[in-house]
């Protein structure tokens, strides 16, 4: 994969998110080194905290430089991830996701 292909994957400018915001994870399947697990792509969760800006692993995996990405903790309800979930109604999964994978709902 070329550096330019990776660069164009960078979304333009993102407004910051705040705890409480509902977000949908992009339902994309780009090649390369991706730290957004398939099981949350396309799913809706709620931002629970902001960790500040970190290097983008999708670029760092190829030793490329690029803009840092804000990193957020996003909480998903188990029943929103798995239709047949049979545990407690509030059971949840928290994931740490980078801004360019999140769309505000």
């Amino acid at each position, binding site marked *: 994969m070329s550096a330019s292909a990776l660069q164009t994957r960078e979304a333009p400018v993102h407004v910051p998110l705040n705890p409480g915001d509902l977000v949908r994870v992009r339902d994309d399947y780009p090649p390369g080194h991706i730290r957004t697990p398939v*099981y949350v792509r396309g799913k809706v969760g709620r931002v629970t905290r902001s960790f500040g800006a970190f290097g983008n692993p999708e670029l760092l995996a190829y030793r490329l430089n690029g803009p840092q990405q804000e990193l957020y903790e996003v909480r998903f309800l188990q029943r929103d*991830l798995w239709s047949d979930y049979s*545990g*407690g109604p509030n059971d949840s*999964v928290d994931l*740490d996701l*980078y801004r360019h994978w999140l769309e505000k709902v």
Partner: protein
Amino acid sequence: MPHDHHDHEHDHAHGHAHAHAPPQPDHKVHSYYQILGVALKELLVEKGVVTADEVRAAIEKRDQITPAHGAKVVARSWVDPLYRIKLLTNANLAVAELGFPMTTTKLVAVENSEEVHNVVVCTLCSCYPRELLGLPPAWYKSRAYRARIVSEPRAVLGEFGTNLPDNVEVRVHDSTADIRYLVIPIQPPGTEGKSEEELAALVTRDSMIGVAEVKAHG
């Protein structure tokens, strides 16, 4: 004998195209990758990329970090409410204060309560607070744990002997990015009179990953 397990594990690699070394007198079969690992080390040392001393020092440094470090942190958080607040708000600072600096990753501590039970995984690889707890156990890196804990956490916790009421929220932390997680387990009832050292001795690695609770009697 610890390497019995490894030999068993390495059986999985036998379908690979590479030929294996002939069985040795002690019946220890070395996989192609074990031999490749030794080849890598020898060549990197010969080329001056690493020195044998550096590798040895890195191994010794790893060996010195054990779950006992995390246990001291947890015990302190049980006896010192101000320390607990510091641990929950700036965990890197709090663990460094006890002599366990985490320099390469950001640490976040999450507390178990009557309402929430936290458990940690890395579904994508093996992210773990190595600088505080040492290397992760084999099961933490296993495909079965990584696959199942995010979709059937209660069944998985049950396999570790941890059965939680339905009204407790099970909260799984999938450490997918730059944050490493430490679970602060609940201090077991009946241990209020114990010293910090006695409490630390009760805290297990599994309780700091969140698959187990701390028992009052080790």
